[in-house]
C-alpha cells in the first residue's frame, strides 16, 4: 500500500512541477509578460493593454496569480489564443484526436511487431537474415523520424504517386482517411518498431544465456517453445515500462510527421504557433502532451504490477 502511495505521490509531484514550470516560463523569460502570455503578433492599443493587464491579473502579486492559474487549470481553462480567436483548450481538443489517430495505431503495431521480431532476432542472432534485419532497424533507429518521412513522401507520393500528398482526408470517408494515414502511420510504426526491436533483441540475448533457458532445452523443448513460453515472458517486462516512456517520444515524433505531411493535428498546431509566436497555444499543447505522457506512465505502472508477480507480492 505504501508503495502505491509513493508511486502516486511521484506522479502528483511531477504534474505539479511541470504545471508550475508552465506558469513560471512566460513570466521569467525576457520581454513583457503580457506579450509572453498573449503571443507576439497581437497588436493592442494602450488602453486595452492596461485593461488586459488587470484582467489577466498581471498587476497582482505573483502568488495570487499562481492560485488563479491553478483555478484555471482545474476548470480546463488553458487561456485564450488571440491569434486564433478561440479558447486554447477547444483548439487543442479538436486537433488532439487526429494526432492520437496517428500515434496510437503506430505505437501498438510497432510495439507488437517490434517485440516479436526483436525476440526472434535475439534468439537466432547468428542467422544472416536476422543480421540483415538488425542492420535495417538499426539504421532506422538512427534516423530522425521527419527525415524518414521526407524520403517516404518523395518516393511514394512524388515519384510513384501511390499515396496522397498531404492532409488527413479529402472526402472524409473511412477509406479515404485510411489511404491518407497509411504512409505516416507506416513511418511512425517503423520508428517505434525499431526502438522496441533493439531493446527486445538485447533483452532476449541476455535471457538466452540464463540457466532456465538451458534447462528448458535440456528437457527437450522445441526452440520456439522455449522462446515464446519461457524467455519471451521474462524479456518482455522491460518493454512495458519503456513503451510508456516511448509514448512521449512517439507523440513528439508524430508532431514532426504531421508537419511533413501537412496534417492538421497537434504537430502543425505547434508549428504554426511557433511561427507566429502564439504562446498560449504552445503552452497549452505542452501541458496536454505532458498530461497524456504522465497518464501513460501511470497505466504502465499498473499493468506492470499486474503482470510481474515479484512486484505484486512486494
Amino acid at each position, binding site marked *: 500500500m505504501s508503495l502505491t502511495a509513493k508511486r502516486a505521490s511521484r506522479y502528483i*509531484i511531477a504534474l505539479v512541477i511541470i504545471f508550475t514550470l508552465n506558469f513560471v516560463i512566460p513570466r521569467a523569460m525576457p520581454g513583457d509578460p503580457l506579450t509572453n502570455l498573449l503571443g507576439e503578433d497581437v497588436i493592442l492599443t494602450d488602453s486595452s493593454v492596461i485593461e488586459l493587464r488587470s484582467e489577466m491579473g498581471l498587476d497582482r502579486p505573483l502568488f495570487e496569480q499562481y492560485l488563479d492559474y491553478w483555478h484555471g487549470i482545474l476548470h480546463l481553462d488553458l487561456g485564450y489564443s488571440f491569434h486564433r480567436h478561440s479558447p486554447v483548450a477547444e483548439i487543442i481538443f479538436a486537433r488532439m484526436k487526429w494526432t492520437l489517430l496517428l500515434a496510437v495505431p503506430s505505437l501498438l503495431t510497432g510495439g507488437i511487431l517490434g517485440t516479436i521480431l526483436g525476440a526472434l532476432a535475439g534468439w537466432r542472432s547468428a542467422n544472416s537474415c536476422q543480421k540483415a534485419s538488425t542492420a535495417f532497424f538499426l539504421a532506422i533507429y538512427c534516423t530522425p523520424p521527419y*527525415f524518414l518521412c521526407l524520403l517516404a513522401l518523395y518516393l511514394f507520393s512524388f515519384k510513384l504517386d501511390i499515396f496522397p500528398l498531404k492532409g488527413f482526408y479529402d472526402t472524409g470517408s473511412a477509406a479515404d482517411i485510411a489511404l491518407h494515414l497509411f504512409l505516416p502511420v507506416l513511418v511512425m510504426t517503423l520508428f517505434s518498431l525499431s526502438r522496441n526491436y533493439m531493446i527486445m533483441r538485447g533483452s532476449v540475448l541476455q535471457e538466452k544465456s540464463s540457466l*532456465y533457458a538451458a534447462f528448458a532445452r535440456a528437457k527437450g523443448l522445441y526452440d520456439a517453445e522455449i522462446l515464446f513460453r519461457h524467455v519471451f515472458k521474462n524479456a518482455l517486462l522491460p518493454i512495458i515500462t519503456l513503451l510508456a516512456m516511448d509514448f512521449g517520444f512517439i507523440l513528439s515524433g508524430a*508532431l514532426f510527421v504531421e508537419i511533413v505531411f501537412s496534417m492538421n493535428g497537434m504537430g502543425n498546431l505547434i*508549428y504554426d504557433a511557433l511561427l507566429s509566436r502564439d504562446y498560449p497555444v504552445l503552452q497549452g499543447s505542452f501541458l496536454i502532451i505532458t498530461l497524456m505522457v504522465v497518464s501513460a506512465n501511470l497505466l504502465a505502472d499498473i499493468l506492470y504490477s499486474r503482470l510481474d508477480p515479484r512486484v505484486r507480492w512486494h
Partner: protein
Amino acid sequence: MIPDATLCASPEIMPEAAECPDENKRQCCKREYSRTERISMSLCSAREVLRMQKMSLVGLLLFLSFVLMAVFSEELAPFDPWMRFEPYLLPGSEHLLGTNDMGNDILSELIYSTRISLFVGFAAALMATLIGTIVGLLAGYYKGMTDEILMGITDIFLMIPQIPLIIVIASFLRPSFWIVALLMGALWWTSTARVVRSRTLQVREMGFVQASRALGFSDLHIIFTDVLPNTCHVIAPKFLLSIASAMIAEASISFLGLGDPTMKSWGTMINFAFTRGGFINGYWWWYLTPGLCITLFVLCVVLMGFAWEEQERTNQRLE
C-alpha cells in the same frame, strides 16, 4: 532520446540446486552447472565480441572522419559556404553536391555544418553525463533518503516530454545553439544517473571502498577517487549514446527553425530545404545529404556505444 534495456533490472531466475538431497552432491552439481555455463558463455560471447569489435571499428573510423571534417572544415571545403553561385544546380563536376536556392555550394555547407551539429551533440552529452554521473554517484553512495529524493527527481524528469518542453522554452528566447545544447543537457541525464547509481551500489560494498572508509577518508574523497574510476566504464557508453540522442534532437529542433539561422547545421539545412521550397520542387540533393550525414553519424556513435555496452555486459557475466 535513446532507451536502453539496462534501465530495467533483468529478472534472473536461477534453477535451484536444492533438489539434490545431500550436501556434497549439491555443491558438486552447482559447480558443474556454473562451469559448463561459463564455457558455453565464453565461447558464445567471444564470437559476439569479435563481431561487435569489427562493427565498432567501422563506427570509430566514420566517427573520426566526421571529427576531422569538423576540425578542418576550412581546408576541406571547396568553397566558402556563404559564397553565391548559380542557384538550384544539380550535382555535377563543378559543384559535387549541387547548390541551393541562394546558390551556396551544398558540399561546403555540409562540411561547415559538421561543426555546429557535432558541437551541439557533444556539449549536450557532456553536460548530461556530468549531471547524471553526479546524481548517480550521490544516490548510490549515500543510499537511504538521498537516494529516494534523487531517484524521485530522476523519475520526474523521465516523465517530462523533452522535445515539447525545449520547443516551448526556445520559442521565448532568441534562437541559439547554445541554448538548445544547454536545455538538452539539462533534460537528458536521467538514464546515465540510473546506470551510474546501480553500479555505485555495487562498488560501494567492495573491499577497497570499505577499507578507505575504515581508514577514515571523507565521503567525497571516496566517491571521487575510489568509486568514480570504477564507474567510468559504464559512463563512457552512456556518453556515446547521449551524443546520438542529442544529435537527433538537435536535428529535429533545428528543423522547426529554432536553431540559429545565421549558422549552418545539418538540421537547419533540411529546415531551409523544407521551408524554402526545396522539398516541394523535388530538389532532393538539397536535403538528402544532410539527412544522410545525421543518420551516418548517429549510426557510428550508436554502434560504438552498443559494442562497448555489450562488452561490459559480457565482462560482468564472466566475472
